[in-house]
């Protein structure tokens, strides 16, 4: 009897996952084909198969702009969603997200220090192009890494997960205050540079940056799939999880490091992209009606990537030169949908 049930649910989820995978590839192709210059889908196919569209400027656009951007979108979407999912399960809190431990605040503080103090040191404005972007990445990386260090230290000493959550929130508040002070004493163009960073951007990564970004995020995503089983036991509550043989401290530390590396890397390269990481896990749970992480983690990875491609497609508004900030698009189009689903489902907790 059990075998039947298990086989049925397994084959159902395999179908869903394959469906989502196909959807992701379709969205990728559409994303590549539309933009300020439209490239026919058949040409995009040709580019993938033969390596060229037989049009030099299209090749250039695809290779240097659209492909890096689309890949970034997929990975950012997957990484943020999966870290949001892990935080929500770990803290048993539907409002938790990838940034709940203060990762983005730490990164923001790092960037703010680099931009605002860099001005006083005199080096920052002179740096342009590649040097400048790497400096921002390094500053954000150092910022989120130090938050990760402190939180991990706290996690190995504190027994209660919710305490950790509050420590994370306090971190966010304190670094926000620091950033305000720095802003208060800086010049307009630096504030603008900071604000633009805080909008988030998917299109600023070159292949050299991607050569760092892709491996880190891919490793993080693989690692999150491996964390699915312990996350499942956490669904029963910490006491049950421990009684089922889970080493709580170790698991919590692994989850935090995994989330922080994913969210920290995304923030370092693309800025703080809000909303997505909190909303997408809910969206996935409600749409696919499961709490089982063995299915949920790959679902969230695929669905997150797909949806981010879609949002990026909306942000670049086909036929128009300018691109909207991705942060604005995700919340603007995502929030109504989440509200709609919530109203239809009545109770958020039942979707857990």
């Amino acid at each position: 009897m059990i075998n039947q049930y298990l086989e049925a649910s397994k084959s159902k989820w395999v179908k869903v996952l394959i469906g989502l995978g196909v959807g992701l590839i379709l969205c990728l192709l559409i994303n590549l084909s539309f933009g300020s210059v439209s490239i026919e889908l058949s040409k995009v196919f040709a580019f993938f198969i033969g390596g060229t569209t037989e049009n030099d400027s299209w090749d250039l656009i695809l290779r240097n702009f659209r492909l890096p951007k689309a890949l970034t979108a997929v990975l950012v979407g997957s990484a943020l969603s999966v870290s949001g999912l892990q935080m929500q399960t770990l803290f048993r809190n539907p409002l938790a997200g990838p940034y709940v431990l203060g990762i983005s605040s730490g990164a923001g503080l790092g960037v703010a220090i680099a931009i605002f103090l860099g001005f006083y040191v005199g080096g920052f404005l002179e740096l342009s192009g590649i040097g400048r972007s790497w400096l921002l990445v390094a500053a954000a990386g150092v910022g989120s890494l130090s938050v990760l260090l402190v939180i991990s230290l706290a996690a190995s000493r504190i027994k209660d997960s919710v305490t950790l959550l509050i420590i994370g929130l306090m971190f966010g508040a304190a670094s926000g205050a620091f950033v305000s002070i720095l802003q208060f004493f800086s010049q307009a163009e630096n504030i603008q540079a900071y604000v633009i960073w805080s909008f988030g951007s998917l299109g600023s990564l070159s292949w050299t940056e991607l050569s760092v970004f892709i491996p880190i995020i891919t490793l993080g995503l693989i690692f999150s799939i491996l964390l699915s089983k312990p996350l499942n036991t956490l669904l029963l509550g910490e006491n049950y999880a421990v009684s089922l043989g889970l080493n709580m401290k170790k698991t919590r530390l692994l989850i935090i490091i995994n989330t922080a590396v994913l969210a920290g890397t995304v923030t370092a390269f693309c800025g703080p992209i809000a909303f997505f990481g909190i909303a997408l896990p809910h969206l996935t749970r409600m749409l696919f009606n499961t709490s089982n992480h063995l299915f949920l983690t790959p679902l969230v990875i695929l669905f997150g990537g797909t949806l981010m491609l879609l949002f990026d497609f909306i942000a670049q508004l086909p036929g128009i030169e300018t691109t909207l900030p991705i942060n604005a698009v995700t919340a603007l189009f995502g929030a109504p949908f989440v509200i709609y689903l919530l109203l239809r489902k009545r109770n958020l907790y039942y979707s857990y």
Partner: protein
Amino acid sequence: MSLLEVKNLSIGYPGKDQNKIIQSDVSVYLESGQIVSLMGQNGVGKTTFIKTISGLLNPIKGEILFDGRPLEQLSAADMSKKLSVVLTEKPYAQNLSVLELITIGRHPYSSWMGMLSAHDKEVIDWAITETHINYLANKKLFELSDGQLQKVMIAKALAQETNIILLDEPAAHLDLYNKIEVMMLLRQIAQSGKAILISTHDMQVSTQLSDRLWLFNFNEAVKQGTPEDLIMDGTLEKTLYLNGYGYDMVHGTVDMIKSGRTVSINGSGDRLFWTQQALRRNGYTVQEKSEVAVIISDSAWEVNVGEQTFHVESIENLLLKLNNILSS
């Protein structure tokens, strides 16, 4: 050798200067095939004790031995193969299916990706069959009633394949039927060689179905023994309930305020039982001889007062009639 042996255990919570000790010098043991009921008033440390011996809380002092090995030497993973728990807290995720929950119960054995072996599936199947919840397998947790959820949690504990199962208040919130069903289920599980410890307030069911009682009381040593011995020497009543509430706790009956009216009853069986209960509730004292005599026949009640005889068809009318007679 006992499956679980507890020696001079003190339980409680660590404080800043001084530990808050709830129970001290607890020395008890669990043997296979036995159901033990842990009883005591609210706040006496039943849940703390269960959490301490399952490794969720640290003991303040004393030893906890599993098959002779001390708890401190066992990792969470080792423990999960020796002891399973059903706590009062509900699982946090309500959207899991029953089958998924029981599968999570196989956590100590399944592979690192949660894949189940043929044996895992057999055990899950057995746990579901044993608890008679086959019809629930595909339901979500939020669709279950309290009684159903309790059985599902027991199935989870069974799937963990441990020799010891601890249950914190398994029968709370359940109606009598479900209570008895759960207890009979535990009885049946114990017979297969497992040791079961339950904490409970429920006297009637647990005294009938457990092999031993452990009685926790404030500032007193733990008392233990066979339920019947503890009932007969009055220990049970003394430890669990302060006197003076007019409750006959052991039998679960209530003495109402007496009105001073007396009746005698003659009859048998169910009809006698329920008539007595109705009369007692209304303040009558049932005596062997009284001016007012009630004779219960198969179809009616006959009331004899002096020379007069009345016939009534229901207990309601009997009560009205008696009230009329005695207040005139």
